[in-house]
């Protein structure tokens, strides 16, 4: 309440300065004149009374200034005067003004740009529920998990194993575990015919729909991964039959520095199907065009298998 009144009174004296000034002037004048009369009544001459009163009570102008300076609006006034003074000074030296304005503009611009970048790269979290659970697979951008298609706030996954030559079996086990957890991934059969089951580790990272893209160049460890996901009914395989390389190789180093590669086991999928020379059959056959896709064309409308994969996923989500 009193704050509002103070603001109202301040604004009044800001915008109706003359009126308020005159009022204060009149009030103070009356005050001093009454003091003068008092002194004269006590027997002083007007000549004596005036300076005595000014000395005892303060002069008119000084008092006015003191009263004015005590209010908040005087601060506003001072600021406004300073701004006008600053502008006048700047107008007098245009060259300096231009340099100063440019320096500030460039400085602020550069800061804003850098902050925008840092915000996007480092500060803003990814548009997923649990960014800390995101995994990056492999070192290359065209590595296996290619796309999380966002659909009504729900993520689906397309795992592209096309032209994937495989590699370490342990890596395929790690990737399979992300989707399957502790399920049987494949069987390893040694030369005696004894089978050893290989099981995934840890809890699955996601149960969102998954499509795996495969083709006739999906080989070895990549086939194992595709087979594990298919036989556990975790993923839909789209594409063509895989290469069919289902042997485990071990490398023996020889004394002259050369090596001897020995097949030590062959694999079966969880459903007991042989991988070697058979390959993994896709659930949905979509033949790829003859020529290889350029990396920039992968996952675009030129990529028929990818298109089919996304279409199938969306159908599954919507049904």
């Amino acid at each position, binding site marked *: *309440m*009193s704050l509002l*009144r*103070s603001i109202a*009174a*301040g604004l009044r004296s800001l915008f109706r300065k003359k009126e308020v000034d005159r*009022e*204060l002037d*009149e*009030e*103070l004048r*009356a*005050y*001093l*004149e*009454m*003091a003068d*009369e*008092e002194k004269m009544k006590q027997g002083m001459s007007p000549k004596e009374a005036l300076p005595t009163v000014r000395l*005892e*009570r*303060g002069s008119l102008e*000084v*008092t006015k200034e*003191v*009263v004015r300076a*005590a*209010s908040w609006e005087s601060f506003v006034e001072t600021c406004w005067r300073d701004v006008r003074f600053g502008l006048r000074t700047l107008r007098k030296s245009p060259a300096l003004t231009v340099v100063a304005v440019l320096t500030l503009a460039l400085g602020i611009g550069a800061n804003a740009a850098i902050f925008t970048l840092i915000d996007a790269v480092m500060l803003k979290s990814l548009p997923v529920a649990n960014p800390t659970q995101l995994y990056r697979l492999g070192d290359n951008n065209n590595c296996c998990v290619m796309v999380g298609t966002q659909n009504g706030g729900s993520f689906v996954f397309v795992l592209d194993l096309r032209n994937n030559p495989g590699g370490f079996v342990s890596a395929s086990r790690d990737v399979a575990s992300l989707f399957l957890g502790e399920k049987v991934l494949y069987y390893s059969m040694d030369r005696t015919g004894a089978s050893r089951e290989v099981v995934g580790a840890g809890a699955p990272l996601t149960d969102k729909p998954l499509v795996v893209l495969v083709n006739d160049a999906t080989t070895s460890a990549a086939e194992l991964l595709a087979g594990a996901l298919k036989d556990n009914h975790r993923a839909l395989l789209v594409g063509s039959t895989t290469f069919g390389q289902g042997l485990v190789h071990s490398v023996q180093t020889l004394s002259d520095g050369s090596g001897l590669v020995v097949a030590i086991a062959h694999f079966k999928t969880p459903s007991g199907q042989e991988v070697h020379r058979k390959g993994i059959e896709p659930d949905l056959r979509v033949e790829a065009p003859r020529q290889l896709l350029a990396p920039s064309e992968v996952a675009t409308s030129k990529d028929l298998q990818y298109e089919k994969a996304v279409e199938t996923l969306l159908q599954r989500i919507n049904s």
Partner: protein
Amino acid sequence: MAEKPSDLVQGTLDMLILKTLALEPMHGYGIAVRLEQMSKGVFRLNAGSLFVAFQRLQRAGLIKSEWKGTENSRRAKYYAVTEQGRKRLNSETREWARQVSAIARILEAS
């Protein structure tokens, strides 16, 4: 030998003005004279602090003002205490009495 007029204890001017105005509405000079008389010349007020206090009290809604003619047929701004100001005066007077008696107790302790 007469002692020099002394400055007010900080923060008490408002209370004294409210007290003066609670007796009857008065113009600025009247308030100054009344304060000096009642204090028997101990307090001498300069116009600056007095009018700053008027402005402050008025903006706080504790006093209100009105232009009126004086007995000497001069126009002067008369101040009067508001209801809110009266309440403030009561609470400040109580607080003041409390503090003075506390200080006195401390000073008189032997």
